[in-house]
């Protein structure tokens, strides 16, 4: 397959950030930001994006894609080599300007929470409030403890708390000084799966309730989709797509995004008579490709339906039970493998010949380079 | 909140400690009515005398005890910034060396010239001897007939092979003794002597004079060469020990007994000349001489002061006529000779 080459589909030609340019100033604005530990190998390259007041942005990508570096650059822990970062319209980072982290009023929740082990819950939460008046500080700590539901634990020390409780402390500590925005680095990666889902819900409500502008780093697309207003997908230091979760899933800008956010197969096709002809049948030519062009059609498992059981030129290779559905791997006549999901109540035998029908409402096409 | 941070701050404590240190250690020694003494003489052999001086005059004493040569080096390194006012050593050669390096200043005091004979002073009175110690043969009375030994040089005879104990090459009195032999008997005699004692002593080379005396008393060896007071120290503890002191080289053509002296000099850069002179005055006085010598069973240099009765009377023997002031110039060639012979 040729999907290794990351290509921009004609359908998403415009730069992701362009839709924000010119609007009344966003809370956070990154312009062509490049950061590097070694100048030859930038960790992130030419990132541009904006976040508005109250929005939740997820930085999504595999490990090493530069999402944490971007977050740290926003927080002020990394300097930028090229480009600018604006917070509330003020320039905080550029090759010549660097506001230290303590001046940015940006709250941060670390992956390992980084709770101060020598301080109790209340002192951890009150850490950033030492300039506040005593009574104000106390009431703010109290408010935060209530907010994250840690009442009665304020005298405990971090090591006496469960993972979920620790995360709440970290969150409360970051929110306590009323930051202009909250940055979170893989906040759920240290929790067990049950807890993750619970905490994700809680966090979502809390951020919405407090209208906190947030940036969340994650490698889990489910998490990103569940939380975010906007998802920014990074790959090898580049921002490859920044859109709403729905757009990211259904209209990925390139095969990388398509595969990263869910199961996807790519079927080669050819434009004939304004349609995309493939071995699975014809698709609409949504990309506006010229006739005769070779393209790849993205097919998600829910775009296909198994129809003719016992007859057909495709064959079920394996079945994977996924609870509410079954995921079938199906070998086409050409030898190509595609995936198809079906309700878990319908069970087809492995090795059974089947026929496939396309039920997609839209088509995503990528240029095919052979 | 702030207060509690500073409670945990060790830096403040450090500042206090360091400043304390400066106050304690760095305070200059220039207080009036005080004297700083660099002493190469063991503390217990000098402190009682200095204490008594302090009591008598009210001049307080600060002392640095160390090796004589080390203190000489220190004086030289410190130059005019030295805190030392006087320099006391057990060995006159070091004092003479200090004089040559212009580290000492001459003192003209009647009391000194009256009390201390001139061979025991620097020609210009830059240093003054305070007590004498002789380098002698100690022998085991049940193993040795003293009549067979007339000269110190005789212990180098092959007949004493394996029966002699000697100090190590680093011993200052050995070095001074060899210098005197070189001056009195010539280079060749000195070399023969060194080769002989090296051969005769074998493994009986000791770092401490006390061990030589011990070995002789136990009969492990028949003879040893030591400073005289070690013999009397041993006899004080073990009155029945079969050891005795032998005065050699007393014949008409003998060189005489080798005597070295402990002494004192006033540093060239002292700021307490008057107090230093008072100390010298005290040490050469009859009372001072007696106290100084008796602490270590040495010979007072003041002729009117009684020698400890257990020692051979000062008048009963003749001393080698090599002025102590010459020890310094003799030292380097002596060291080379010792190194060449390969004494350990």
């Amino acid at each position, binding site marked *: 397959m040729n999907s290794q080459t990351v290509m921009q589909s004609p359908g998403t030609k415009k730069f992701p950030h362009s839709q924000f340019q010119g609007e009344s100033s966003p809370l956070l604005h990154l312009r062509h930001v490049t950061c590097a530990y070694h100048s030859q190998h930038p960790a992130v390259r030419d990132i541009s994006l904006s976040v508005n007041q109250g929005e939740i942005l997820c930085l999504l990508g595999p490990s090493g894609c530069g999402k944490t570096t971007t977050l740290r650059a926003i927080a002020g822990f990394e300097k930028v080599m090229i480009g600018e970062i604006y917070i509330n319209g003020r320039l905080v980072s550029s090759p010549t300007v660097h506001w230290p982290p303590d001046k940015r009023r940006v709250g941060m929740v670390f992956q390992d929470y980084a709770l101060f082990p020598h301080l109790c819950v209340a002192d951890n939460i009150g850490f950033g409030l030492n300039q506040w008046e005593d009574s104000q500080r106390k009431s703010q700590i109290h408010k935060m403890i209530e907010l994250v539901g840690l009442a009665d634990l304020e005298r405990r020390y971090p090591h006496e708390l469960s993972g979920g409780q620790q995360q709440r402390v970290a969150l409360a500590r970051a929110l306590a000084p009323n930051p202009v925005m909250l940055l979170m680095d893989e906040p759920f990666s240290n929790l067990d799966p049950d807890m993750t889902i619970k905490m994700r819900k809680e966090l979502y409500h809390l951020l919405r309730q407090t209208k906190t502008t947030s940036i969340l780093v994650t490698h889990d697309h489910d998490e990103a989709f569940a939380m975010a207003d906007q998802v920014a997908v990074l790959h090898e230091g580049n921002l490859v797509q920044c859109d709403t979760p729905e757009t990211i899933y259904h209209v990925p800008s390139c095969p990388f995004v398509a595969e990263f956010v869910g199961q996807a197969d790519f079927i080669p096709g050819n434009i004939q008579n304004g349609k995309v002809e493939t071995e699975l049948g014809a698709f609409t030519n949504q990309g506006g490709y010229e006739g005769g062009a070779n393209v790849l059609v993205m097919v998600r498992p829910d775009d296909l339906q198994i129809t003719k059981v016992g007859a057909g030129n495709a064959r079920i290779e394996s079945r994977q039970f996924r609870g509410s559905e079954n995921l079938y791997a199906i070998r086409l006549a050409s030898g190509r493998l595609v995936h198809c999901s079906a309700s878990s109540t319908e069970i087809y035998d492995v090795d059974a010949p089947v026929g496939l029908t396309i039920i997609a409402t839209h088509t995503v096409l990528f240029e095919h380079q052979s | 909140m702030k207060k509690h941070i500073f409670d945990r701050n060790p*830096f403040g404590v450090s500042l206090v400690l360091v400043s304390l240190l400066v106050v304690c*250690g760095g305070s200059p020694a220039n207080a009036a009515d005080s004297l700083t003494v660099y002493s190469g003489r063991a503390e217990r052999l000098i402190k009682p005398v200095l204490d008594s001086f302090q009591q008598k005059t009210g001049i307080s004493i600060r002392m640095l005890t160390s090796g004589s040569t080390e203190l000489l080096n220190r004086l030289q390194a410190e130059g005019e910034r030295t*805190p030392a006012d006087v320099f006391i050593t057990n060995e006159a050669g070091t004092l003479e060396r200090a004089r040559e390096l212009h580290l000492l200043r001459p003192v003209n005091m009647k009391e000194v010239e009256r009390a201390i004979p001139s061979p025991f002073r620097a020609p210009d009175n830059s240093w003054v001897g305070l007590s004498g110690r002789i380098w002698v043969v100690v022998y085991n009375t049940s193993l040795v007939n003293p009549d067979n030994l007339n000269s110190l040089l005789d212990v180098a005879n092959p007949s004493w092979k394996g029966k002699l104990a000697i100090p190590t090459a680093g011993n200052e009195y050995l070095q001074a003794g060899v210098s005197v032999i070189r001056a009195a008997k010539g280079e060749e005699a000195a070399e023969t002597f060194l080769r002989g004692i090296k051969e005769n002593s074998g493994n009986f080379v000791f770092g401490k004079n006390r061990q030589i005396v011990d070995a002789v008393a136990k009969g492990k060896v028949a003879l040893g060469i030591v400073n005289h007071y070690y013999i009397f120290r041993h006899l004080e503890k073990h009155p029945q020990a079969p050891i005795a002191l032998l005065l050699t080289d007393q014949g008409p053509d003998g060189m005489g007994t080798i005597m070295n002296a402990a002494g004192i000099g006033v540093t060239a850069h002292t700021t307490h000349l008057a107090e230093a002179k008072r100390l010298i005055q005290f040490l050469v006085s009859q009372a001072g001489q007696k106290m100084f010598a008796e602490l270590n069973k040495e010979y007072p240099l003041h002729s009117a002061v009684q020698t400890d009765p257990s020692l051979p009377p000062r008048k009963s023997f003749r001393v080698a006529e090599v002025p102590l002031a010459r020890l310094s110039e003799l030292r380097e060639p002596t060291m080379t000779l010792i190194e060449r012979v390969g004494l350990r």
Partner: protein
Amino acid sequence: MTVLARQAVLSPLAIFSFGISGLIVLPLLYVVYSAMKADFAIWQRLWSTRIPELFLNTVSLAFGVGIATLTLGVSLAWFITRYEFWGRGFWEWAFVLPLAIPSYVLAYVYTFLLDTGGPLEQAWQVVMGPEAPFFSPYSFIGALMVMTLNTFPYVYLLAKTALQNFNVTFEEAAQATGASQWATIFRVFLPLIRPALVAGLFLVTLYVVSDFGAVSLLRFQTFTYAVYQQITGRYDYAAASILSLLLVSFALIFLLGERWFRRQSRYYQMTGKVRPPTLMPCSVSRSALMTGYCVVVFGMAFALPTYWLVQWTSEAWAENEIGTEFLTYIWNSMVLSGGAATLALVLGTPLAYLACRHPTRLNTLCIQGAYTGYVLPGPVAALALLILFSSIPFLYGTALVLVLAYLIHFLPAGLQSMESAIQQVNPNLEEAAKSLGARSYQAFQRVTLPLVRGGFLVAWILMFLQCMKELPATLLLRPVGFDTLAVRIWLEASEELYQLAAPPALLIVLMTIPVVMLLTRKNWQVG
């Protein structure tokens, strides 16, 4: 980027730590420089007179002590980790105690014990007949014995750790293939614990090469002692510098060797799941034999010397010879060591912090510079400071020069604990503090400092004790009227005034014991 990099490098803290590091390296550089520029004739003279003997003595002592400590350390560790015999639990920690006795204190006790007519010779001659020859403490054997008894705990501790972490499965695997017990020991067991042993060996030799106190009291001519003699016996700093340079090169070899082999041993020991050996019960006669062996070694290395120190101290006490000056010596020692340790902690903090948090080339260079103090034996450090500071009137002859010498010499020991303490603090904690509005120094003060307090305290105690025990630099640089406990021990011991030397020696030993016990629990590398 280059602009930014330069900005980062030239932070005031980095400049400060560069200055400290420079201050520490300066004496070493100066000694090397004066050795290099010394007249070639001096090199030739030393080469034809002193150097061969010193080289032979130093190497043979290091080698001999190495073999002896290896034998003692490994055999003790073997018995203690493999056999259940009488008092095994006691012996397991007891063999750390000899580390609490400074080498010169052990040497001075043994000059008495081994002296002609001394207790040990008498005991020997009771057993072997009245004329049985006995060795003198002032000999190769004497120096060998004292240094061995003083340093074998290092090998013991390393060997014990290696043996306790040793995976018995290897042994069983070898036996399953038909190897005999001896073959197993030589082909599996020893090769596997070899890195730990070699590391211990290097540590011991480094210690022997740079020891001053024991060899000087036993008058055994090694490089360290010769350097001291050159400074004190003759006014010959050029010759002293040359000998120092050779000594430093020696120490460097052993230090680097130790580092290298320790990395190896760490690698070897990290092998998955370990099934530690179980203790074998043994018969009464075997048990008695092992206990006897332990009693002899422990007695010679610790019990006997301590007994005599207590004995002499009580004699001195009874004869009213412990006067008020004794309190002054304690005070001087405390203030000096406390000041030096505290200063070292304060000055070492930026070095350790920068090296851990911002390991730029410059910061790494700085801390490595500070570590050179390791290879600077006391007399050499003193020599360098003598040459460098004798012309600075406000410094020379004050306790500050002494503090500086301690700093140079002992900062490395402290830096090691400080670095590991800082490394254990998650850097995220500082970033979290900064993200909450704390400035860098506030983050350090409010978060890092409280968390490294334990490690820093250990570093302080370590440096404090080293300073308390330090001898050659103290002897050479102490101000007038400023004697410390260590100096008193040396002065009185050189005069063979055992009763007077004992109280300060006993005090140092008693102060060191709890620290040795404490430190060996975490990190055996003490002393």
